[in-house]
């Protein structure tokens, strides 16, 4: 097969040079694997490593012929591109709509040798590249679709007002890393043959305009646009776009509707096929607090998806069979990666893991200092410390506020100026020279906790670690400075605040305290 030749022809119009060669090599290696699948159109590959394999796997089934490769983002785009073009050619061959070329010689007739892909294909064995709607629009859509990371799936799924048989495709989820899955976006255009369904309608929705805020999506977007421009077939489905936007509105959380929809897309679980969900990609940009809304949107997406997806083939996981009846049940459709177990339970496990990791990414943004940490255990440790420190801060601050001199009479001007100043400094916390008004003499200073220096030290460390802020210096100052009454007071208050209030006892912090109080009283 003259893949190399093909690559040459393909020529990254987009301007990605390197990949072409890469693609070529990939293709050659993958070809045998994919048989007739259009080579890893599914590329989307996952970045690095197994990507090719997986991408090919993905693309394979349905995509097979028709897929127009999903051109992904830079690293993968190349590959895709190569594939894409190949696919195009391939499609052309099959559909006869395209020009020549595609020497189909490289596509072995043995389809689907790989069982892995079979499920996705839905039993469809694309012996002959199914006659896909050989319109350029379809290919374009496929390409666009592939460009989208998993996040976009939601959108893609959307338009699934596809005939049932196409639903099987809808299950494909792009892996986070960017595998793409060609998705049967628009079933209507596909031939009704089983094979054609499998062939995949790339869910290429005319979503270029959609606000793909997701990072990955952004990456894909240019690709899709380019693809579109290339005249790839587009499954121009106006309804899809409309659905898209409407869905986007529904899901709009913080302005990244597509991400949510992407999340929703991941809902169908297919037995035997699994792809990492692109949830994390989408979720990244979303605010954590918006998660609930997003999840609702996700569920909503799933609902939309359900009716449109066709019943999976017998090999599919149990969940797939219940689609039409599942109003709000959350199930995820995943695709097995190449070389991985296709057991439905392991798929579930993998899905679960992916969701967890995606959420951990959110936490990484939230907890300071966690950007470099990879690994659940360490992340959890940091999270625990952070939550503990926040809780301690609340305790401490409430104690501090309790010590505010009851008969302070705040003047308006002073407060206004103070407030404006305070408002500007967000991290204003413990000014080092803080002087806490000591409780009025008639109040028992007690209630002071037994000085627990070790806990104080620990809390200081914890606070410093998590907050990295004025707290520790203040503590240090208070503990190290000489005994001015104020410092002692601060120290006591700090100790009170830091130690959990369970330890509050009415012992005097130190015997010297009361006398100091009396002394200091004006």
């Amino acid at each position, binding site marked *: 097969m003259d893949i190399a030749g093909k690559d040459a022809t393909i020529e990254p119009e987009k301007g990605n040079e390197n990949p072409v060669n890469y693609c070529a090599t990939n293709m050659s290696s993958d070809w045998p694997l994919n048989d007739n699948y259009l080579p890893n159109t599914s590329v989307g590959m996952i970045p690095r490593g197994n990507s090719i394999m997986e991408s090919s796997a993905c693309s394979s089934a349905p995509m097979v012929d028709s897929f127009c490769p999903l051109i992904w983002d830079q690293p993968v785009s190349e590959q895709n591109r190569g594939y894409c073009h190949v696919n195009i050619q391939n499609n052309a061959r099959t559909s006869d709509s395209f020009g020549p070329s595609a020497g189909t010689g490289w596509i072995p007739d043995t389809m689907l040798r790989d069982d892995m892909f079979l499920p996705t294909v839905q039993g469809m064995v694309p012996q002959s590249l199914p006659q896909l709607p050989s319109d350029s629009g379809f290919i374009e859509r496929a390409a666009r679709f592939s460009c989208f990371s998993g996040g976009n799936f939601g959108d893609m799924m959307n338009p699934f007002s596809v005939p049932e048989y196409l639903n099987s495709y809808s299950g494909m989820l792009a892996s986070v890393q960017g595998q793409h899955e060609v998705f049967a976006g628009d079933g209507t255009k596909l031939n009704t043959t089983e094979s054609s369904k499998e062939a995949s309608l790339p869910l290429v929705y005319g979503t270029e305009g959609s606000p793909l805020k997701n990072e990955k999506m952004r990456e894909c977007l240019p690709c899709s646009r380019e693809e579109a421009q290339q005249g790839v077939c587009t499954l121009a489905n106006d309804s899809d776009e409309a659905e898209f936007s409407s869905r986007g509105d529904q899901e709009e959380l913080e302005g990244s509707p597509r991400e949510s929809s992407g999340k929703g897309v991941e809902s169908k679980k297919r037995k035997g096929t699994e792809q990492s969900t692109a949830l994390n990609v989408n979720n990244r940009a979303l605010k954590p607090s918006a998660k609930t809304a997003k999840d609702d949107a996700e569920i909503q997406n799933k609902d939309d998806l359900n009716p449109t997806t066709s019943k999976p083939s017998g090999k599919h996981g149990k969940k797939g069979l219940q689609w039409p009846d599942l109003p709000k049940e959350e199930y995820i459709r995943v695709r097995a990666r190449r070389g991985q177990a296709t057991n439905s339970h392991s798929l579930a496990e993998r899905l679960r893991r992916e969701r967890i990791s995606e959420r951990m990414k959110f936490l990484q943004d939230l907890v300071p200092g966690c950007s470099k940490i990879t690994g659940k255990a360490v992340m959890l440790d940091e999270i625990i410390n952070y939550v503990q420190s*926040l809780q301690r801060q609340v305790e401490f601050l409430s104690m501090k506020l309790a010590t505010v001199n009851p008969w302070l009479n705040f003047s308006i001007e002073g407060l206004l100026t103070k407030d404006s100043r305070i408002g500007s400094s967000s991290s204003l916390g413990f000014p080092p020279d803080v002087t806490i008004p000591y409780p009025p003499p008639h109040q028992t200073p007690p209630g002071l906790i037994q000085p627990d220096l070790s806990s104080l030290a620990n809390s200081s460390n914890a606070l410093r670690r998590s907050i990295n802020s004025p707290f520790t210096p203040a503590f240090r100052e208070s503990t190290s400075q000489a005994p001015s009454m104020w410092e002692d007071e601060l120290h006591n208050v700090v100790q009170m605040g830091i130690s959990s209030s369970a330890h509050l006892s009415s012992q005097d912090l130190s015997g010297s305290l009361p006398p100091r109080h009396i002394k200091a009283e004006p």
Partner: protein
Amino acid sequence: MKARTGYSTSLKQEFLKKWIKGIRIYSNFKKDMNILERKKAIKLSADLAIASTRNASTRWSRTLTANISKNETNKLFVEQIFSDSEVIKKEAPSRLMARSNRIASKKIWRRSHITQIKARKMGPYAVKASSIAKKLVKNRTKVLKSLVPGGENMDGISLIKETLDYIVSLRVQVDVMRRLASAAENSTRLGLSSKCSVHWLQGIFTVLDHWCAMVH
């Protein structure tokens, strides 16, 4: 970013208002409190306020409110606070138990099944290493569950979700309290105080009102 800051600002304002309201009600309850009681009042009001900003949509907020209401003395307080607003929803305990049992049994099955598969696939050492890692994660998850209110019966995914929400709320709480405390300190330091027998809470109220006016 803009949306984010706008959202958190409104959250802070909401929290502040509710907090002030709670403190006022509490101070009407008990006129004279020592420092400990004041601290408890402040903390309670703050917790209730921050939990109510979620409108009982998250597990932790519901649990927090429920825990506070468990105490008899607090109950009246709580009811008064919420008399005009949201209803405190509580999940039926039976449902929780059933769900947790289901989850637990599923986990057991899954775990055993997966270890079998892994033992077949990987070498014995790899299995051990991964199991050690899993133990670590499990222990830490347990700790996290104890930290987050209401996290006991949740599975990993929703636990992380709740933690996220809880962290955001805690940050809001801390931020507002910190600002208030520094405002109080600064005004004290500047000698704006005069001694009189104004109740301590009134002092705080003034600060808070002024700050609200500033923010708005």
